[in-house]
């Protein structure tokens, strides 16, 4: 396999950063996230995963869509905002790579293509690093993700101890690999296979859930939920967004931003009616969306097993415990 010595990785990053914005896993102000290489913070390749997912690379937390100017009754200007630029996401883990595939399904398929996402996606190169160890909260391999690699990444890298194995998987990936030729060596080495310690049996879940809409299990698991947005904002696959306007007199702009189905006003309609008035309905909607509805619509789970929600929920709402419980209960019997 072609490899790059870990001692030379900074040289590789310097080359990559020449023509693109290079995003690497870093600790910034105590929080691990993907941040521009060279910005304030410490690089972290040894951590299993970042706390903040890389979804804001393609789907920013807040994004300007278009700006306008008004004079009397006339709209004198309407300008679409496009700040997409070449980006390289370096060190993305297979779980997050799978989340990018889910996002691609949402934003690029089914009748409409979201241009704001597409412009960034076309200019993004993904360099995936397979995991050699897992966190106690990781369960990606139960959700159909291989912790050691992801075939959709442009470049696949493997942690071989003193060096990284490196393989291009797409044309765009080959362009990147070509740039790093002078740093590469040939080395024999097989990446160590790793599997998650936390396992769940996710088979048959969508079919079972489709019969459980009125099941009392929802009340039981939703009681301790505090209704914050932590799970949705840390989740690499949550994509719900809101669109609002910021207006300053005669000009302003329309933006979109992350929204959360856990907030009570999310489903509130004009006139005040709310079809999901309590935590019960909202947690039910969230879990059904992750494990059943998305599967029905796009043919894959919307949970990639990254474990961030399990690690950070203030009251330990745990989707894996929920899946375990699902296996135990009969679809039509009380909990």
């Amino acid at each position, binding site marked *: 396999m072609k490899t790059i010595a870990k001692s030379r990785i900074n040289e590789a990053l310097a080359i990559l950063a020449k023509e693109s914005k290079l995003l690497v896993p870093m600790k910034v102000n105590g929080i691990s996230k993907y941040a521009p290489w060279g910005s304030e913070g410490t690089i972290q390749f040894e951590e299993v995963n970042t706390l903040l997912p890389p979804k804001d690379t393609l789907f920013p937390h807040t994004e300007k*869509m*278009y700006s*306008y100017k*008004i004079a009397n*009754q*006339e*709209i*004198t*200007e*309407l300008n*679409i905002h496009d700040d997409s630029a070449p980006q390289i996401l370096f060190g993305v883990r297979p779980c997050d790579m799978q989340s990018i595939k889910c996002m691609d399904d*949402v*934003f690029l398929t*089914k*009748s*409409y*293509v*979201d*241009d*704001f996402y597409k412009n960034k996606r076309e200019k993004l190169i993904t360099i995936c690093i397979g995991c050699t160890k897992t966190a106690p909260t990781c369960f990606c391999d139960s959700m159909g993700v291989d912790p050691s690699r992801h075939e959709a990444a442009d470049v696949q890298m493997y942690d071989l101890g003193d060096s990284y194995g490196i393989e291009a998987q797409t044309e765009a990936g080959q362009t990147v690999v070509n740039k790093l030729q002078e740093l590469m060596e040939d080395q024999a080495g097989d990446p160590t296979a790793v599997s998650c310690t936390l396992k769940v049996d996710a088979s048959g879940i969508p079919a079972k859930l489709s019969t459980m*809409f*009125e099941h009392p299990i929802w009340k039981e698991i939703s009681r301790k939920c505090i209704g914050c947005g932590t799970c949705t904002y840390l989740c690499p696959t949550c*994509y*719900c*967004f*809101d*669109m*609002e*306007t910021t*207006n300053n007199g005669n000009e*302003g702009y*329309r933006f*979109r931003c992350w*929204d959360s*189905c856990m907030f009570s006003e*999310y*489903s*509130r*309609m*004009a*006139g005040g009616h709310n*079809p*999901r008035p309590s935590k019960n*309905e909202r947690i039910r*909607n969230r879990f*059904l*969306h992750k494990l*059943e*509805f*998305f599967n*029905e*619509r796009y043919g894959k789970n919307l949970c990639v097993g990254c474990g961030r929600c399990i690690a950070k929920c203030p009251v330990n709402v745990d989707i894996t415990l929920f899946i375990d419980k699902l296996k135990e209960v009969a679809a039509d019997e009380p909990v």
Partner: protein
Amino acid sequence: MSQCKCENPLVPSVVTVLKIVEETSDIKTFHVSTKDGKKPFTPMPGQLGMFSLLTVGEGMFSVTAQGENHLEFAIKKCGMLTDALHEIKPGQMMGVRGPYGNGFPLDLCKGKDMLFIGGGIGLAPVRSLIKYCFEQREDFGKIDIIYGARSMNDLCFKEDLFENWPKERDTNVHVTVDSGDENCPCHIGFVPAFLEEINPNPQGKIVVLCGPPIMIKFCLQSLTKMGFTDEQVITTLEMRMKCGIGKCGRCSIGSKYVCLDGPVFTMAELKHLPNEF
């Protein structure tokens, strides 16, 4: 620059409001066309448009009718955006994008007798289909329209209800109000009860039903009693929509997006969706 040539589905085109018709005290119909006097898009009956006052925001509204060069949206005053829309004057420039939604299943309706049941503002989305049926009269059989509102003052599209539509071939228009006095020219009573009085024959009919949830619920009960099947009844759902293109998640019910897979659904399809209403 006044015209935006956008293919970005989240960015509106610019239109001018040509005319505003006051249907009732809280419902107005807005006629819009582009700066060069054209339709911004050509919707099929039942499709929607995202209509925006740029300084305030956007809202999804049914296209209730279209001419050769303009579109009509009927908007009820019930929130921040619609309050602001009700204040504007003809000549105002707005944003509009569309058409969105699946529209009415014309293939299902062709050759059938049509029974339209509407309540309040619910007539707005259905009106586009009624007009289509009259424009393509040979493609449809008998047409019955049952429509009700709270009072005489709350009836929408009075010109259509009392003058235009009753004149059409093989068409009956039945109007009712929830309450009225002895001078009231039409029937007095709630729509579901009125429906049962009229007692339509389910044979060869397609029912298009749209109105407040409570009206839909009771009308459905009545229709089932009278022998109509779930496949014969079509309705159009109302839900808060933001992106209009099936991505933001706001209007999703189960695995469907009301803005993309709907808003028109048959009762049979609705019964397969999670019971969130």
